[in-house]
């Protein structure tokens, strides 16, 4: 055992930096946010000392209509964007996996949105959404006639859908590449065999491709949903959570409460709730999707 001591000292020296970082920047903040959530902690210290106030923050949170609106908006966004984006990604992957000419070129083009910073994408889409005569409205006027327009971002009933469209466009290439990897993992002889059996293209998709992507689908549904629940950048730049709270998401609400109005204690209660909700949703999805596949 003595011989090992030097080696173990070296191991410890290699392990410690990352362990210190994880502890100081994840574990400690996590514990702090649980603690803050039971206090009236402010961002900038006040003369009156911070005190323990029990579950008051949670009680206040649960009766704030804007909190519930933020949850509803976030859930709505996740419920719409996940299937839309995954359908886009799978469609694009199927196209790029087929024997088309210039496949390399098309693939490079399709990954471009992933490389663009979200702030750049938001500014481009701000032009697309412009009223009264941005490109989308120009197309709308073709159908609805001169002078008609949709206030995509200013109207509460279209604002969230606009954010969905932007977000799906912005990040679909990531899921597309993972679908491509999944498609390439499906053994070719399965396709050969089903062709010999006279299966049509749709049947090959239904009975070979789709089951072959099962694990990829489970993985992507979970990460896309979890990613969607964190929606912040797009709405902060584009709509500031408006109009009328229509695009306020949980993270935007947390940011507003904790940073803009400096109520760290209250916002920490939101953060703890968010952590529990995301974990629960990811676990439920995993369990549900796995069982579904096996049944």
């Amino acid at each position, binding site marked *: 055992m003595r011989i090992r001591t030097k080696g173990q000292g070296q191991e410890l020296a290699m392990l410690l930096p990352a362990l210190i970082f994880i502890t100081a920047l994840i574990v400690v903040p996590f514990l702090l946010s649980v603690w803050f959530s039971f206090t009236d902690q402010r961002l900038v210290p006040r003369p009156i000392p911070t005190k323990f106030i029990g579950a008051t923050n949670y009680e206040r949170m649960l009766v704030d209509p804007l909190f519930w609106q933020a949850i509803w908006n976030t859930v709505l966004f996740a419920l719409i964007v996940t299937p839309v984006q995954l359908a886009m990604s799978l469609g694009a992957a199927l196209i790029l996996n087929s024997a088309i000419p210039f496949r390399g070129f098309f693939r490079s083009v399709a*990954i471009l949105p992933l490389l663009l910073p979200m702030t*750049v994408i938001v500014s481009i889409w701000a032009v697309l959404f412009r009223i009264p005569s941005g490109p989308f409205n120009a197309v709308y006027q073709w159908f609805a006639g001169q002078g008609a327009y949709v206030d995509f971002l200013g109207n509460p009933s279209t604002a969230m859908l606009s954010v969905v469209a932007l977000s799906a466009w912005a990040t679909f290439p990531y899921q597309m590449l993972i679908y491509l990897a999944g498609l390439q993992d499906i053994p070719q002889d399965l396709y050969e065999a089903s062709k010999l059996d006279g299966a049509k293209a749709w049947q090959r998709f239904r009975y070979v491709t789709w089951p072959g992507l099962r694990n990829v689908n489970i993985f992507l549904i979970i990460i896309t949903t979890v990613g969607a629940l964190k929606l912040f950048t797009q709405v902060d730049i584009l709509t500031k959570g408006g109009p009328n709270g229509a695009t306020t998401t949980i993270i935007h609400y947390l940011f507003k409460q904790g940073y803009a109005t400096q109520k760290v204690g209250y916002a920490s209660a939101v953060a703890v709730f968010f952590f529990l909700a995301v974990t629960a949703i990811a676990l439920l999805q995993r369990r549900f999707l796995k069982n579904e596949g096996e049944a």
Partner: protein
Amino acid sequence: MRIPRDAILPSLFALVLALGVLLPLLMMVTISLNPNEQDIMVSMGSIRSFIPQVFSLQNYIEVWTDPVHPFGRYLANTALITFSTLILSILFNSMAAFVLAQGTLAIRKPVMILILATLAVPGESLVLPQLMMAGWLGQIDSYQVQIVPGVANAMSIFLFYQFFSRLPKELIEAARIDGFSFFQIYRHVAMPLSKPVISAIAVLQFLEIWNAYLWPVMVTRGPEYRPLSVAMSAYFGTNQAAWGNIMAFAVSMAVPVILFFLILQRQFIASVMSSGVKG
């Protein structure tokens, strides 16, 4: 070029896909090249906002020489923050992962459980306590405050761990018999073998840091330490009518990343693909 019959429909779809991606980008470039804001507004939505009529760099010159929004400074800030985070993160996280995967320490198991537990914590739920801590330490508005949180990355440790634990035992054993110390095995055996996993982790983290927004918004106060993403949204917020300049800013910000990845395209695609699960 002749297209086989059953590739006609997919080719058409591919064309639609490419147009769907390229048209907005074409519009960005077209508007950025037009120095006449009035004309931009008038032509917005017409075909003229997609096909450049003039090729003027005036918007670009205005963006690059704007004294209130020093573009060069923002770019340098972003590059410094991104590369420092990447280097430290890959170094520390791969070392720790190698200990966890191949070491002999008794605390490996509890540490591994801790890492797996922290994987579940969304970074967004930690920003407020992190901000408080940065304030206590007097680190608000600095480079460190934007670099250090990105180094603590449980996902990166986990991905390295998966790779290192699959290294053949005989290889490690042979190096040990040759008199390599544990660190030397990591440095001269494990790391040279892990180029694919290093590039995968680097690519994913690069995009994450280059795109970071919530955290830099909270911890930067002015142009001195501000990264491009925050600068872009500030610029966008204060120059709402100057679309030519906004688009020139957007192009200037997008081009370095796009070039960087087009050069490394094959590694990039392979990296993202390998970040998924295998079926």
